[in-house]
């Protein structure tokens, strides 16, 4: 079962990757959306706005029964009939039975993700009712027999020629692939259905407890017709759509269109309360309040923030993986990062088991989410849950549990690997080709060899050139610095000594544990946290410095989280967090600032923001400031903070083909910047970007910031 599922998933990835038009469409949309969104939020305090949305949604989650009863009471007073459905089956049954009782033959629908969630169209068809989607994108997808590949733009994966062909099947004649013509055709064709239909079915963006009313945001105007023309209106509403007051609703209306499409407001915002007049009599308004896993989600402390979602789709729009494979791969019914979480709770873990691994962990979604959901954190937790159900795989299990937790064994094996790789590296620092079935890994990037002598073994021989040091700084190297790029350690010593700091290397330090927690093995990650806190604090440093932002995040954030319930280690982890800095911020904030460098005449340089440095540690100005001070002229590449596709085991094991495509985008942006050098602050990004440039035989130099800073002192 699991094997078939994995194979099907891989097949879907391959199909998507062989459709370059899809990637082009999603990239173009992503760029246009990002610009429009930025303009829409211009002059507004985004952090304050999303804190308000989060606050309002959390309030509803905490007191959901109270707000539900308030909503139901007010809606019923206004003449609506309200039913609560525990699951998809109950919701479908209520609606199909209603249709049968009232003799409904045609139901016109406006866009509703809940309807997709419960597969309502299928249920209606089985009950002999013809469902007609009237949102243009939804109609296209319905005619194609597909499901939406985006929550706001359902047919974003399709092109005008395909739409013209589908519409031609409706009209029975060839239709030209002209967008204005196709839109007009949809208007004319669907008008008939609006007038004929006995039932209108809509979703709702907000359910206002205070008034018992629903709010619908649309651009096309179809929801207004769905709610006006047919005698019966059924509104399908997830219970998380509640907002306590009218002011709360206005807040959501202020933010949702800006985040969804970059519009200041949608063409229509429709407030519907109760049974309004309809023809000679009154409308029948049925409101179906759906739970279907939402209460379970509310009870999950690690996942419940997902209930804040207002369905804007921003998390997909910024996601490098979504832009590469689209929503039919990276999604189930709900797509993108939020789709992973909602699928797990609304459709079951099995539906989420593959897509939960699709996240590369770049945190772009976290930075744009208008409801302040830490999607990456929830996804990591779900990986743990699925690992608990299905295991993380025998190979990984041995590596993490038996090897990584034993530092001497782990490091011993890395040393052995340095010797065993000789036939492949031929003594060079770069692996250009791997034999046999590993060859795919070096088809698109060279790989660095494991160093002959890891940093930890050469450390005592590194001279410290500093008298009366003003600070004692412990270096947390991380595996890549220690075993693959030991020279970065030497550069770090050169630079920090010059700034008056002594650098020490606590020998008992080991892997930060992130590879284990990203694979769902939290137990090993906690064990590594404890080992490292002990190792680093035992040397009583003033600061701990890292040259790997993923390690920075582990020390600053994850260790505290892993050890928070441990009476011995919780306080120590907090202390370590407080004194840990990435090297750029350590220099700018603690060791005298950028002014020390005063260089000139460096190469034109562009800077690649590593995901975990910018969106994890909030550091992006600092390295630019340092590089500029060191005499480099800086030029910004497009999408400087877009992921390079490394993602640790993501590019080696789980999704190398996706990682390769994401890297291609990055290299294109680097080359277009005309820079001679690309700087970055992460050894993982360095492995990926340097490997990609080398494979292309590009003259552009890829370097860690610390390497370039050390250069200024060597010159």
């Amino acid at each position, binding site marked *: 079962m699991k094997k078939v599922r994995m194979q099907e998933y891989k097949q879907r990835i391959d199909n998507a990757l062989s459709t370059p038009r899809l990637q082009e469409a999603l990239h173009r949309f992503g760029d246009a959306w990002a610009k429009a969104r930025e303009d829409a939020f211009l002059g507004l305090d985004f952090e304050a706005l999303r804190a308000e949305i989060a606050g309002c949604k959390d309030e509803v989650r905490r007191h959901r029964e109270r707000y539900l009863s308030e909503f139901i009471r007010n809606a019923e007073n*206004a003449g609506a009939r309200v039913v609560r459905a525990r699951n998809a089956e109950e919701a479908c049954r209520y609606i199909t039975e209603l249709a049968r009782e009232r003799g409904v033959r045609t139901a016109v629908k406006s866009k509703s993700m809940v309807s997709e969630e419960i597969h309502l169209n299928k249920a209606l068809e089985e009950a002999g009712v013809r469902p007609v989607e*009237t949102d243009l994108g939804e109609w296209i997808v319905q005619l194609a027999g597909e499901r939406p590949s985006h929550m706001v733009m359902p*047919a974003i994966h*399709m092109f005008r020629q395909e739409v013209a062909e589908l519409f031609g099947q409706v009209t029975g004649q060839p239709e030209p692939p002209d967008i204005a013509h196709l839109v007009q055709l949809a208007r004319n064709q669907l008008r008939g259905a609006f007038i004929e239909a006995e039932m209108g079915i809509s979703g709702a963006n907000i359910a206002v407890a205070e008034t018992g009313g629903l709010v619908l945001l649309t*651009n096309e105007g179809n929801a*207004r*017709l769905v709610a006006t023309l047919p005698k019966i209106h059924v509104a399908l509403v997830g219970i998380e759509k509640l907002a306590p007051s009218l*002011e709360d609703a206005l807040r959501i*209306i202020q933010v949702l269109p800006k985040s969804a499409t970059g519009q200041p407001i949608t063409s229509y915002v429709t407030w519907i309360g109760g049974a309004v007049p309809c023809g000679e009599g009154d409308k029948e308004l049925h409101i179906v309040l759906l739970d279907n896993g939402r209460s379970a989600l509310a009870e999950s402390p690690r996942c419940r923030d997902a209930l804040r979602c207002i369905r804007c789709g921003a998390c997909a729009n910024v996601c490098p993986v979504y832009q590469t494979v689209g929503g039919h791969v990276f999604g189930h019914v709900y797509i993108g990062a939020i789709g992973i979480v909602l699928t797990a709770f609304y459709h079951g873990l099995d539906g989420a088991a593959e897509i939960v691994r699709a996240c590369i962990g770049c945190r772009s979604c976290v930075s744009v989410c208008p409801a302040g959901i830490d999607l990456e954190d929830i996804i990591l937790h779900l990986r743990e849950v699925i690992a608990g159900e299905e295991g993380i795989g025998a190979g990984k299990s041995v590596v993490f549990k038996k090897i990584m937790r034993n530092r001497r064994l782990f490091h011993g094996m890395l040393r052995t690997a340095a010797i065993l790789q000789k036939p492949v590296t031929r003594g060079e620092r770069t692996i250009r080709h791997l034999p046999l079935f590993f060859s795919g890994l070096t088809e698109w990037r060279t790989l660095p060899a494991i160093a002959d002598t890891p940093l930890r073994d050469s450390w005592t021989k590194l001279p410290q050139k500093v008298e009366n040091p003003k600070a004692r700084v412990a270096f947390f190297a991380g595996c890549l610095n220690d075993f693959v790029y030991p020279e970065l350690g030497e550069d770090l010593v050169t630079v920090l000594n010059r700034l008056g700091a002594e650098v020490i290397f606590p020998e008992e330090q080991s892997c930060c544990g992130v590879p284990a927690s990203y694979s769902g093995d939290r137990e090993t990650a906690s064990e590594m946290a404890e080992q490292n806190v002990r190792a680093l604090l035992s040397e009583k440093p003033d600061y701990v410095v890292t040259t790997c932002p993923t390690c920075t995040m582990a020390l600053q954030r994850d260790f505290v989280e892993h050890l928070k319930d441990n009476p011995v280690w919780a306080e120590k982890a907090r202390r370590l967090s407080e004194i840990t800095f990435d090297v750029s911020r350590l220099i700018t904030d603690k060791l005298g600032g950028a002014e020390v460098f005063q260089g000139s005449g460096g190469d034109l340089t562009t800077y690649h923001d590593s995901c975990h440095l910018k969106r994890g540690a909030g550091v992006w100005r600092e390295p630019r400031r340092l590089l500029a001070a060191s005499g480099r002229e800086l030029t910004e590449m497009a999408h400087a903070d877009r992921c390079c596709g490394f993602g640790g085991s993501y590019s080696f094991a789980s999704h190398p083909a996706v990682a390769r495509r994401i890297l291609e985008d990055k290299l294109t942006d680097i080359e277009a910047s005309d820079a001679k050098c690309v700087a970055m602050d992460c050894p993982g990004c360095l492995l990926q970007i340097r490997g990609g440039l080398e494979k292309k035989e590009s003259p552009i130099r890829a370097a860690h910031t610390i390497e370039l800073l050390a250069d200024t002192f060597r010159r």
Partner: protein
Amino acid sequence: MPEENRMKTFLEAAGRSGAKTVFCSSPAQAVSYLRDHSGGSILLPSFSSSRRLGLAGLLRDAGCEVIDSDFRRQSAAAAAGLTGVNFAFAETGTLVLESTEEPVRLATTLPERHFALLDPRKIFPDARSAAPVLRQLQSGTRHFVAFVTGPSRTADIERVLTIGVHGPREVHILLLEGLSDDPLEM
């Protein structure tokens, strides 16, 4: 937001949303604009300021074909809908229409053109500042309140913005002082 800026902001935002704005110095001027731009029969639901002005009569005198009854049957063929506006938001160029009565909804959804008569005195800075009035509009047990910002639009095919999919293709805002200063009435 000072009165003058408010109008400027409103006009700019309405323009960006794709609506046309027209200043009318008298009801007669509004009527002649409607005669020139309606493109055919005009759906005219009943609303306070229209009744006070005797709009139906003025339009008929000007030679317009006016539909003011039997809306369900006649609205599909109408070229235009004419309504008042309860109030507006400067920030986004949004019109707020209390649409509980069905003819108002039909006149603003089905025809290709929507003409909206707005008294400039009823422009609020933004939605939040109008919350108390909005609450009053919804305090009745049943309500249907519409925010309308520009014409109907879609970008569902290849993300190409296309105007006029299910709702009006054109929205004309006729600014006419003296209609009403009460946001609770249209």
